[in-house]
């Protein structure tokens, strides 16, 4: 079996959003929608720290997208099986043609904002589709989210966000393979996950 996971090194991530933008263009994501975003773990506003003195200041970044959970809350609530976990890869997928737009998955998902709903016909700044030609066409009245670049993974490539990370903060690979980079990093480094108490068993790990 294969279980693809994302491992993000928060000591190296500088919140540059290059991954978010690459995702946006690669997947021809409509206006106003982002499947991946860098969030500041610091002060109240983006790009500001918490702490009151120079010695106690703290600012790190968390890149937030679908967590491709092993125990996905979204899958359980989908009445039509449009969202499902692909057993071959561990990727949580979304079938636009099956989706009836009930948005139960969005309510069930504890990771706010990683799923979005196209209330209207998707709009674009450019009059042609950007990015990869294998990306499924976006549709009105469906829920969408990070696909872990399934179209690229299927061709033997990494997700686009991993390729371009200049800080070499993003790693991707098979957690079921003990020799993979991700397995080794998780064996060597302390790490955390988002909302582990929700029992969703996310496939995204943050090295701390």
């Amino acid at each position, binding site marked *: 079996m294969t279980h693809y996971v994302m491992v993000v090194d928060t*000591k*190296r991530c*500088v919140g*540059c*959003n*290059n991954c*978010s*933008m*690459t995702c*946006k*263009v*690669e997947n021809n994501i409509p*206006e*106003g929608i*982002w499947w991946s*975003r860098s969030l500041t773990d*610091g*002060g*109240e*506003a983006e*790009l*500001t*720290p918490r*702490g*009151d003195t*120079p010695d106690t*200041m*703290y*600012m790190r970044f968390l890149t937030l997208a679908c967590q491709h959970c092993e125990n996905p809350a979204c899958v359980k609530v989908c009445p039509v099986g449009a969202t499902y976990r692909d057993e*071959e*890869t561990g990727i949580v*997928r979304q*079938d*636009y*043609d*099956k989706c009836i737009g009930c948005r139960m998955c969005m309510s069930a998902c504890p990771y706010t904002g990683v799923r979005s709903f196209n209330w209207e016909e998707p709009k674009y*700044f*450019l009059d*042609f*589709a*950007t*990015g*990869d*030609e*294998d990306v*499924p066409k976006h549709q009105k009245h469906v829920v969408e989210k990070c*696909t872990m670049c*399934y*179209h690229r*993974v*299927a*061709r*033997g490539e990494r997700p*686009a966000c991993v*390729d*371009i*990370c*200049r*800080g*070499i903060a993003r790693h991707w690979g098979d957690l079921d393979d003990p020799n993979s980079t991700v397995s080794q990093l998780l064996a060597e480094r302390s790490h955390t996950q988002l909302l582990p108490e929700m029992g969703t068993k996310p496939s995204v790990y943050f090295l701390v």
Partner: protein
Amino acid sequence: MSEASSGGLTRRAFLKTTAAATAVTAAGAGLSTVAAHAASPTRGLPDEQSFVNTCRGNCGGKCVLVGKVREGKLVQTRPYEPPEGFERSRMGCVKGVTYPQRLYAPNRVLYPMIQRGERGSDNWERVSWDEAIAYVSDHINKAQAEYGPNAFGLWHSYGSEGWLNGAYHQSTGVGYHRFLNTFGGTVIIPGGDQAQVYMGLFVMQHGTNSTADYTNAKTLIAWGANVTDTVRCCWPYICDARDKGARMIAVDPRYTITAAGSDTWIPVRSGTDGALMLAMANFIIDNDLVDWDFLAKKSVAPLLIKDDGSYFKLSDMGIPPTEGPISPWTGQPVIINPEVVFDKATGQLASQFTAEDPAVTGEFEYEGTRLRTVFDYVRDMTKQFTVEFAAKECDISEEQVIDLATTYATNGPTTVVMAQGICHHVNSRHNYKNLAYLASLTGNIDKPGACIYLNKNHVNVETTTLTTKEMYPDPSLMKPYATLCSERVPEVLETGKLGEADLPLKVVMIVSANPFASESGRPRFLETLKHLDCLVTVDCFMSDTARYSDVILPVGLSFEQEDFLQISSHEVDFLMQKAVEPAGEVKSDFEIYNLLAPKIGLDGLYDKDAEGYLHALLDNEANKKIGRTYDDFKREGVIADWSEEPVIGTEANALKRVQFYLPDLIARDVAYTVLPAEEKIPWYEHAMEAYQDNPLREKYPLFGNSEHSNYTGHSMYNDIPWIHEIWGDPYVMLNDETAAERGIAEDDLVRVFNDRGEVVLRARLTKGLRKDSIILPHGPQQDAYRVGHPQDLTLCFSDLTGNSSYNDFLCEVEKWKGGE
């Protein structure tokens, strides 16, 4: 439904392609080309092709982007990927990915246009290229006939790059360079970063290590450098150094992302870095943390000077100079007349090149001439810059000064990670001498892990443009030209003089530049434009500068033209491939010079077409041997050596020593200016306006600063809708207490102002900024603000280097009363 209709993929296809790709990855090697996907069909789809080019974002990165074309449109630009094992050499940023939106932006200028109303009135008339060129050349010819050749000025910055179309002063761009050497007019160069460019690159010429050498450092000091946002190539090496245990210290008024990734943040008041550097030097001397051997053998410290400050040379002892090899620049033999030191090994005065044990300190005499060492002189002149002085000036504790000095000297090798944060005040030029002094005192330069300066790597292609005859026209056509930095333009326009010399500037053509958005002192530029008969801007967009011009000549973007570029920081050479047809009627810079030249009497300036010049520039014997001719690049796209071996700098200046004393320093644009002694030694003086005791602070208490955000490339890339979705509207960063004192809340519209101007924008509150400082954006243009422009608050002033002093201003902030 089936999976195929959703993702175009079946599980069977998935497993099959995974196996194939594994084999391809295994075939990767150190020498990489883009042959597999450049200018050839990608994955067998006949309607989709890939091309390599660069974003041309004026950040110095010159990242190679692989552009994908589908049905005639550029649908994606992704950074070119180095082979496995060289991930630290990755390129690209959040802006380069958005290139398609830039290429197809609605605000591109697609046709030549002439302003029919007042400048700035937006009353444009579309004209033909013939009409536009005739309009421009008529104005140039008339002005030159009436006022002389210098009446026509060519003003550039660094907006475009490439061996054909680039416009760097004295480097790159055959179109610009041949024009420059023939037109006999006035050349205006950007003031941005000139303190570093002039002092560091031209005068002192320090050795610099490569980026990969960061991993050898035990201490890294990010001094006014937010490298995570501005010099991205440094970051993976810095992370590796820290993994090996290096200590990282950020010296910055703001808690930047780089500061967040450091062990220590020292929040100095901006514009006071020089005081800190000299206090460190004095602490290092007073506590004998000096590397005396390095100071004596590798720096100018032991060189003897006379009472007038000039070097005592062998000729002063009656030993005549000798002739060295022929200089490639002058064609004349180099004159060798070594400086003299006192050799402790022999007890005699001797050439600095032959002495075994030069004395760093001591008083000497030669036939009645009193001599002393550079070190003694500099130390005595700079004694007043104590730890106590710096602590007060920089508004940090004495312990912080001492810790920084001690760490710098004793926890080496130490590298100063530098960008341009210490370059944007009127006093900035001193910082470069001060850092060279610090490095000389402690031996922290020209060694693995020790460096004070911008880093660089190898250059592969054996021909640099400057030394190639193709860059120069026939010698009979060449004419001298006047040169000045942009900060002097308003003064020249008002007085008709540059210093003491007449300079009746009447027609200016701006290429590759947007000074009214990007240079310090915007109000002075706009106010003095009235003295110009004609202002021409060559640009891709209706920029802040273009909108105040009389004529706009539309120029293409990089993926619309073929060109050539080298990236020294990535050890990559590549052909900038044309991917799409130029939009509208835009032309390349090279084509525009070709159109204009014959109309202003520069006939026969270009004897080849664009491809002909690329052949001529690349097809030399050296490049044939290493497989880097035009045809090689045409076939391969990118040719790269992916070495990550650190390169260590050497002193290439004539003295072969680290220079922190500059007796021969001259002012850049007005060389005859008599410079006071302080200009030639490590020194500190407070900034021109932004200093703590300035009485103006009663009215304007806040120190103004601007940032180079991750999301802008100067004035480029900041009006991209995708970037706006992430970054939002431009904002001023305020300390939360500073905001509270003024009744300002997060996201309020605020007015930042001083006597020169104002700007209205959103407030972003932070604890990570000094309470006496604010950070304004640098990049977004006037349309992005409710009122005004950040550059409306800035000084227009030229120091001896011509530097733009973006951060040397005071201001106040108030809640805007103009509504939402």
